[in-house]
């Protein structure tokens, strides 16, 4: 036998108290790992949105409430589609693209889908009722929608027409060049759900549509959507020439502030929101969540530590005779201390690991309710969790271990 197997056998003969102490620690680690993972994944989502969409603005009805950029069109308030033209005519500095959208909840093959109407780029010009400014539009189509500012560092500026002509690029650019009235683009998840592929025909509200493309996964709610021509969706919905939102893509963040002011003046009935305004709430919520999780962790670890200490004290007390016998057989007091601390470290390590596992499962189950991005475990939380579990277990076993080390060996001579 080894000293380690002694510790192990002692635990196995009566595992319940050890398991209880272990679970107390596991709970703390689970709370930390799950909440931190969700918070950091959410932070990553915010950072990605800021990075990808930092220059973008949303033009919304005043009364629409809003939590997520990608779901900005999921409300029942509308704006007139004319606003698109108004923005074009204003030739605001830095406007590169616009994406008016209208959402319609419907079913395909009895499955619920969000049908989103989008306006292809070419239509900004063709369908415009302002025939007199045709020439100007043509010129604008060759260059940009709005006027360019100096030293522009924008990314969307680098988009080529060819990029936009590829329907699949919608997932990335959020702009299509052309889309036939009865063609649809299907998000990756929706395509799987509906079991459709390119060239398939599907029926929506009595009309037959052709799947023009299945979009690659983007990791956003767009993956669950079906896109069709804005005017087709307007006709199907019977709501007339309205939209839920107009996404205005700026060329780079330098123009955002000026653009907000300009659009607010131009469209007094609308609300203009920047990405940073949009994610502000999310950011503060992440911070709160993260802080609360550390607080929760600290409390749970204290509770776990106290439970370890009480289990260990009781354990040393009830094993007095046995430990005294080990002393008589030649064990040093230091060895008895080590027996206690080895048990504690086992509780710490296994408790940490169980907590990690539990926390990961919790994060993957509850995470999707909070964030829309693929969930990543927070390595920092895992590190903190595992190390603190071990330290707490050892620290709170210090006094029980000391007690074992100072045991009076004469107990083994007492008759029961």
């Amino acid at each position, binding site marked *: 036998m080894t000293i380690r197997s002694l510790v192990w056998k002692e635990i196995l003969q009566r595992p319940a108290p050890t398991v209880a102490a272990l679970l107390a620690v596991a709970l703390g680690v689970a709370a930390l790992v799950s909440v931190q993972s969700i918070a950091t994944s959410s932070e990553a989502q915010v950072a990605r949105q800021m990075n990808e969409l930092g220059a973008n603005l949303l033009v919304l009805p005043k009364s629409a409430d809003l939590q997520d950029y990608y779901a900005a069109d999921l409300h029942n308030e509308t704006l007139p589609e004319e606003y698109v033209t108004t923005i074009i005519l204003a030739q605001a500095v830095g406007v590169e693209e616009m994406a008016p959208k209208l959402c319609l909840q419907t079913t395909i093959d009895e499955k619920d889908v969000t049908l989103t109407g989008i306006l292809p780029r070419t239509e900004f010009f063709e369908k415009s009722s302002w025939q007199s400014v045709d020439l100007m539009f043509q010129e604008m189509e060759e260059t940009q929608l709005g006027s360019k500012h100096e030293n522009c560092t924008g990314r969307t500026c680098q988009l080529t027409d060819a990029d936009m002509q590829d329907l699949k690029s919608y997932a990335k650019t959020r702009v299509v060049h052309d889309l036939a009235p009865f063609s649809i683009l299907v998000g990756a998840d929706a395509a799987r759900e509906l079991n459709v592929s390119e060239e398939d025909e599907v029926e929506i509200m009595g009309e037959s549509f052709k799947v023009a493309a299945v979009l690659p996964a983007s990791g956003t709610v767009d993956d669950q959507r079906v896109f069709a021509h804005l005017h087709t969706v307007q006709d199907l919905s019977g709501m007339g020439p309205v939209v839920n939102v107009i996404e205005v893509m700026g060329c780079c963040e330098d123009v955002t502030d000026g653009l907000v002011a300009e659009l607010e003046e131009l469209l007094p009935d609308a609300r203009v929101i920047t990405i940073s305004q949009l994610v502000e709430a999310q950011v503060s919520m992440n911070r709160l969540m993260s802080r609360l999780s550390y607080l929760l962790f600290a409390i749970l670890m204290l509770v776990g530590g106290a439970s370890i200490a009480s289990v260990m004290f009781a354990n040393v007390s009830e094993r007095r005779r046995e430990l005294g016998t080990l002393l008589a057989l030649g064990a040093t007091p230091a060895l008895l201390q080590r027996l206690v601390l080895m048990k504690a470290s086992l509780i710490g390590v296994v408790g940490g690991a169980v907590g990690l596992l539990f926390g990961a499962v919790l994060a993957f189950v509850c995470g999707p309710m909070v964030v829309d991005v693929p969930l990543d475990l927070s390595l920092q939380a895992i590190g903190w969790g595992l190390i603190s579990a071990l330290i707490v277990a050892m620290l709170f076993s210090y006094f029980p271990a000391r007690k074992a080390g100072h045991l009076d060996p004469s107990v*083994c001579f007492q008759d029961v």
Partner: protein
Amino acid sequence: MIQIENVSKEYQRRGRSVTALQPATLSVEQGEFVSIVGPSGSGKTTLLSMLGGMLAPTSGTVMVLGENLYQLDVSARSRFRNEKIGFVFQNFNLVPWLTALENVQLPLTIGRAEAAVQRNRALELLERFGLADRADHKPSELSAGQQQRVALARTLISTPRLILADEPTGNLDPDSRAMVMETLRECQKQFDQTVILVTHDSSIAESAERKLRITEGVLTEEQPRLNVASA
């Protein structure tokens, strides 16, 4: 083998001191078989504990095998006990969650002997005590006599030079009692181990070649052969 000089012990309990052993001087040679008798509470266990390095005396020196036990540091004293001294207890003190085989191995486990050595030595001893078929039994599955045999095997596995037995037959039936005494005799005769035996049983005490008596903490020799003094 053993020289104690003016060894006394006072216990401090709630501010009052109890003298468990008056200053005693005694020497024992290697291979001697010594019995200690005396009424309950007279200080027998106290003396045995001090001889075994388990209890520091209030005064005096305890020399065992040339080592001044209480001048060694705690871990050196533990190691000394592990290698040189074996205890036999009235209550066996087997570890309840270990099997007979594992209990016997304990002194070697503490001394960090190789696993195979531990196992083979333990099996050998269990066989010698007729317990080979009980190797995997827990103490609770053994009779009192069998438990004391396991405890004896545990004591002998490290071939201690000194065996200290505190009423080892106190809880046993006559057959087991005879077996324990026979074993201790064998240790003395065959292996030249020194045996110091505390007992209540006068017939057992009489069979020893040296008989000590303690009364109210005063140690005396019944049939003085070597010099025993009490002050």
